[in-house]
């Protein structure tokens, strides 16, 4: 038998292993680098380039690239660089949180539906219901009911942020729920779940410890796609008056506003478009890497 006196390490935080594996995934590293650059640009950028994104300068309308305005100005003379940075902050935080919420809801509902037989029928019918609900009236209703109470308790921006995030999250979890449910149904029959049951693990810990970690990979895919749609949906929401105050830039809105003028000022369309695509791509690759890294079977190889 093996030596028991050999030196040994105490259990090490498994996130180190994850990171070690993650580092070996080239795409993921590139993705992470780009993502970090984007985040840094958004967070640190405004310190270096401290022009207010909402500052209207009517003498400098529709300017091209210049020293004063590296990315030019828009039709009201607002600095596009500053707007891109401010917009990124909003878009990314909305995208990430809304995606987080959608994933949370979808996963919860999917897991409950998959794990508890009795809940499956009602929950899946509810999923159908949400898929069928007309989005626009639902969103408008949400604004009507919650805009004021929320902005009262969290300030106008915080309140609207919450509202947007909930609105997007609450209307985009269905796909995830469906996928997760399918996976859970299969996982439930696996023997290690039975093994945990023989130990007396109660249902909630069973789900947290044994089911959830094993449905990470489809969740990760949904998450990647979720960010993209959340960023786009946010811009759609502002056309319902549900978005942030109208002078508040977001990537989605910058893109939409510029589309009409695409012939005159193509760069104004390209910039936010590229920003969104880059974010989505980098998140996608990070997701790929993370999925591999989180799977100890792949990690060990």
């Amino acid at each position, binding site marked *: 038998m093996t030596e028991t006196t050999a030196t040994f390490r105490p259990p090490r935080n498994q996130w180190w292993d994850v990171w070690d594996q993650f580092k*070996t995934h080239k795409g993921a590293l590139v993705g992470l680098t780009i993502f970090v650059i984007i985040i840094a640009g958004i967070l640190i950028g405004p310190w270096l380039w401290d022009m207010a994104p909402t500052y209207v300068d009517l003498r400098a309308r529709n300017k091209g690239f210049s020293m004063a305005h590296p990315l030019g100005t828009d039709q009201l003379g607002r600095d596009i660089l500053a707007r891109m940075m401010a917009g990124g902050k909003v878009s990314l935080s909305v995208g990430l949180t809304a995606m987080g919420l959608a994933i949370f809801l979808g996963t919860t509902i999917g897991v409950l539906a998959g794990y508890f037989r009795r809940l499956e029928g009602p929950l899946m019918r509810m999923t159908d219901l949400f898929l069928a609900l007309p989005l626009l009236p639902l969103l408008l209703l949400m604004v009507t009911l919650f805009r004021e109470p929320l902005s009262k308790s969290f300030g106008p921006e915080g309140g609207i942020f919450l509202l947007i995030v909930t609105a997007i999250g609450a209307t985009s979890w269905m796909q995830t729920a469906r996928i997760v449910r399918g996976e859970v149904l299969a996982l439930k029959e696996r023997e290690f779940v039975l093994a945990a049951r023989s130990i007396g693990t109660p249902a909630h810990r069973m789900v947290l410890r044994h089911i959830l970690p094993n449905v990470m990979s489809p969740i990760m895919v949904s998450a990647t796609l979720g960010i993209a749609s959340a960023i786009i949906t946010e811009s759609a929401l502002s056309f319902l008056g549900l978005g942030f105050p109208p002078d508040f830039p977001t990537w989605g809105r910058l893109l939409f506003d510029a589309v009409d003028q695409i012939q005159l000022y193509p760069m104004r369309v390209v910039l936010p478009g590229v920003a969104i695509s880059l974010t989505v791509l980098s998140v996608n690759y990070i997701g790929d890497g993370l999925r591999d890294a989180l799977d100890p079977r792949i990690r060990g*190889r």
Partner: protein
Amino acid sequence: MPRKTVQKQKTGGLMRDRAQPVLEVTNLKTIFRTRGGEVHAVNSVSFDLKPGELLGVVGESGSGKSVTMMSLIGLLPSPPAEVREGRVMFDGLDLLKCTPAQLRAVRGPGVGFIFQDPMTSLNPVFTVGYQLREPLIKHMGMTKAQAQVRAKELLDLVGIPDAAQRLRDYPHQFSGGMRQRVMIAIALACDPKVLIADEPTTALDVTIQAQILELVKDLRQKLGMAIVWITHDLGVIAGIADRVMVMYGGQIAEQGPVKEVFARPRHPYTRALLQTVPSVRGERADKLNVIEGQPPILRAAPTACPFRDRCTTRFETCDRANPARSPVGPGHDAACFWDFDASAPRTDALIKEAAHG
């Protein structure tokens, strides 16, 4: 590799002395490229197979039995697998050098393969009949109707009752034993010269296993093909094989006629293996013998004996060189520096070479 005649045996009764081997493998090396580096799964394996012969292959899990056989007809996924060197002569054709089309022509009519796991080796969405007809239509040039007739015959042959009906069923509608028989039928479809059976009965229980063993004996008599039978179960080998090949750590540890090897094992691994198995008959030991330790991790081609860490008769030469196979009896060779008859290191050319090199 020494080409010695194998003693004639009663079983099968189709031994052909001095016959040309149908399959001749020389110095086969297969590696896997993985993130953690290369895995040398098969190292310089050489063996041959004569027409009508049943070669048993035993060895611990992971010793490279399946990989060796799959390398022969290029069935390993590549990447990560890579056949580094070696020569596989079949019917005058080097299977490692021929074109994919030539290789495809060999698979099926030349070499039939029964895979380890009958549960997953059949395509779940096609009927058994379809899967049986496929090679018939492709290789035997049959029409669909002809193939259907032949498929029914094949199922009858492997002893599935009500064959005509069952052709329309899907694999999941068969029990494990029946699926394994279907796999055998597929492998036999084109009357292969060589049949490679990779642990065809491991997943089955004894009564079903007994049925299949009977079937194979039967078929061999009827069709006269050469068979490679991979298994862990020494009992099975004892029952059906003419010759046995013991693999360890990607190499052949010992090879020889079944009775010879079982009676006078010349490799410590074979010896240990034979001792671990309890029996349903005879004396019952108080404690089972075990082979202590772990099989080697094949990160590189071994430069020393791969079994040395678990060997009871290890001595310094074992750490220095990897023993080559050398004859220890008629048609019997082993890769070990220890002489069990003398209970001392060998004294012949093999050890001298190693001691110098």
